[in-house]
């Protein structure tokens, strides 16, 4: 499975490079936080409404008590499978408005994937392991991408025209609508820079790494 994934990623990467070479109309996006640090796992997408897909299968693994990947972007209507690759059971849930679901304690593959048919953020977690968190961002377009560790991403295959590019991140202080930029695409390569202010996150003292206790 992992070998397959790796091969798939390689293939996709190569094809992306090829397509970038063949389709010159693209936007190179750089995302930094308010401290000028590159932001990974930023969702970057073109704001447009396309009919929902029906047969787009995506996987969020549970490996070593972590969700992989941490952030997933899907087009509305996509189904996501949550295979449990750990030897222990997990219980996945979400109380997000976009999608509320629960996968009661299970191991291996759940009976059926979960379909995400509303736009927006779906925050999910494991009920047993408080630190296990993952985000699914449901969009109406198929033009989306995620920033890498360098905070960079590329949107390709863009036809000429007016676009609004939106950036979302789980730790973004403001709503994604405030992190939107309009761009006029012509032939060639374009570049956009986003600064996403990070909101203060409560430290999860319940994670295995945090054992700090306070005293009076």
């Amino acid at each position, binding site marked *: 499975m992992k070998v397959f994934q790796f091969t798939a990623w390689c293939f996709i990467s190569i094809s992306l490079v090829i397509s970038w070479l063949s389709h010159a109309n693209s936007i190179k996006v750089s995302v930094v936080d308010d401290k000028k640090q590159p932001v990974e796992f930023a969702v970057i997408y073109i704001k447009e409404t396309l009919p929902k897909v029906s047969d787009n299968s995506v996987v969020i693994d549970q490996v070593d008590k972590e969700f992989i990947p941490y952030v997933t972007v899907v087009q509305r209507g996509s189904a996501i499978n949550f295979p449990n690759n750990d030897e222990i059971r997990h219980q996945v849930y979400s109380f997000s408005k976009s999608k509320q679901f629960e996968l009661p304690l299970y191991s291996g593959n759940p009976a059926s994937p979960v379909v995400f048919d509303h736009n927006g953020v779906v*925050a999910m977690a494991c009920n047993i392991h408080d630190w296990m968190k993952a985000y699914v961002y449901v969009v109406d377009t198929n033009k989306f991408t995620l920033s890498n560790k360098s905070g960079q991403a590329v949107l390709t295959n863009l036809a000429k025209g007016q676009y609004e590019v939106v950036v979302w991140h789980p730790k973004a202080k403001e709503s994604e609508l405030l992190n939107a930029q309009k761009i006029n695409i012509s032939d060639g390569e374009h570049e956009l820079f986003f600064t996403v202010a990070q909101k203060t996150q409560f430290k999860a003292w319940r994670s295995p790494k945090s054992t700090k206790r306070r005293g009076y």
Partner: protein
Amino acid sequence: MVIFIPVQLSLFVVIRDANIATARANIDEALQVTADVFFKSLAQHRDSLLSKVRALSSDYAFKPVANTNEHKTVLSTLISYQQRVDADVMLLLSMQGNIIADTSHPQLTTEPFYLPHLIEQASNSEYGEADSIAFIDNKPYLLVAVPLFSPEPSHWIVMGFLLTDDFALNLQKTTKSDVSILFGSKLASSGNYQWQQLASTLPGGIRQLSEQALTSQASFHQDHNVNQHFNKNFDLSLAGQSYVSVVVPIKSENEEYFIALLQRSLAQALVPYENLHFIVAFGFLVALILLIIGGNFIARKITEPVTVLAQGAEKIEQGHYDLTIEVNQKDELGQLAQRFNAMAKGLAERAKVRSLLGKVVSPAIAEQLLNKGVELGGEEREVTILFSDIRNFTCLCETHNAKEMITLLNQLLTRLSKIIDGHHGVIDKYIGDAVMALFGVPIKDDLQAQNSVLAALAMQQKLVTINQELTANNLVEIGLGIGINTAQVIAGNMGSATRLNYTVIGDGVNVSSRLEGLTKYYGVSILVTQATKEQCKDILFQEIDTVRVKGKKEGLTIYKPLGAIDDCSVQELEQVAVFDKVLLFYKEQNWQSALALLSPLKEQYVSTRYYQIYLDRLQAKQGEEFDKHWDGIFTHFEK
């Protein structure tokens, strides 16, 4: 005693002060411990609350319930959980701080939380958690707020623990200190602090006093920087009982204070020391009694005998030797008293001897005997010897019994002796009715001759008085013959080694005795030798005769003293002058002229015996031729 009592009292005070200081130090330490325990306990309760809420926030059964956001469902769940974990209040709030359910106010459904500060504090904290002490319905709660992650922070869970008397009592059980929790706030009107008691372990009677006491304590009432008095010990009086107190702040915010008043009764802290006080006081009493007994013992055994001895010494100093000191002790003081008594006895005997000696011998001799010691032997001294003899005394004897005679004689001799004493003469001895007196011994006297003559004249003068008395008592008058001679004689203690007396020996003694005998013959009262007469410059003498007494070859000129020259009358002086001329003619064997001068004198002084004697001699010599072998000395053959 004067030293003992102040020393003991100061010791007592020092011990008491030290005990109080120790008690205070113990209290200070105990209060410090109480403060530590108090905060630990509070932290424990807070941690306990946090643990419970954290457990709930991770409870996947609760998450769906919370996310329903249904007031009734949530409220029911909270009440159930609250009972399970023994909390006093529970709330679920939205992330925005609106109430979803509140077990203390079940009716609230969507209202903003009445303690927004707690949520604000939690929002700004690193872990999204907060704890505080705050009032809910005027009751103090220890509150914690923890976010509910689902998985993003979706709600606030608030849990509270009511700070009641039980909380304080639990602390008291551990720390033995009284614990009160008070809330202080500034009065808008005066700006002063007012304190309200929330929980306390103080007993019912003084329970409410702590807030009044603290409010009346100026530093906690009027001082706007009230916090500077925290953590400092002070004395707080509750219903007359002194409590060492310390105020520790639990929470201070906006000039409002939650404080813990930790107290310990000073009286209770001193209870263990009261035993010590009792022991010290008891010891003091025992020591005092022992001191009194010891003092009495010393007074009786030492002070009293010493006082008695001192009084005895004083009496002896005054000359009272006849005393006996009563000290019935067998110690050194008893021995001293015995020695003292022996000494007094010795002194008494010595005084007795001296007194007796003064009677037996002349006081001057007695003194010399006592001072210079008694030793046999003598020295050659010029001494004037006076012999006196009472005439006609034997006639008195015939008409009176012996006892009366001795009494009379003693009276006479006493009076005569007194005159001799008065003229620095010493009585050598009494020989029947005769007195032998010495002048110039044992103490040297340059006027010995004159003194002796004056004494003799005084004795004759006294005789006049005595005779008047005798006459008055129908007794025969007495006469007194006195012979005086001054000569070199041996004076000293004479006799045997065991019995001796101070006297003089020599021809000179016999001469005075002879002279005394001659007085009767010449019909004069006093006769002195030339040796005596020559030493008497101020006395007028009448030469009487030149005699050869028995056992003597040389003639002895004898004189009759008439008195002090200044006192003599013209007739006396004339008489002396005339008779001297008679004697001159007599010695020149000019009988005719002598007789011519004497005859008128005799006619004038018929009673003068020696005029008659010379008249007789001259008449016998009348017509006798000048005899160149005649020396004019009349020889007396009789004694």
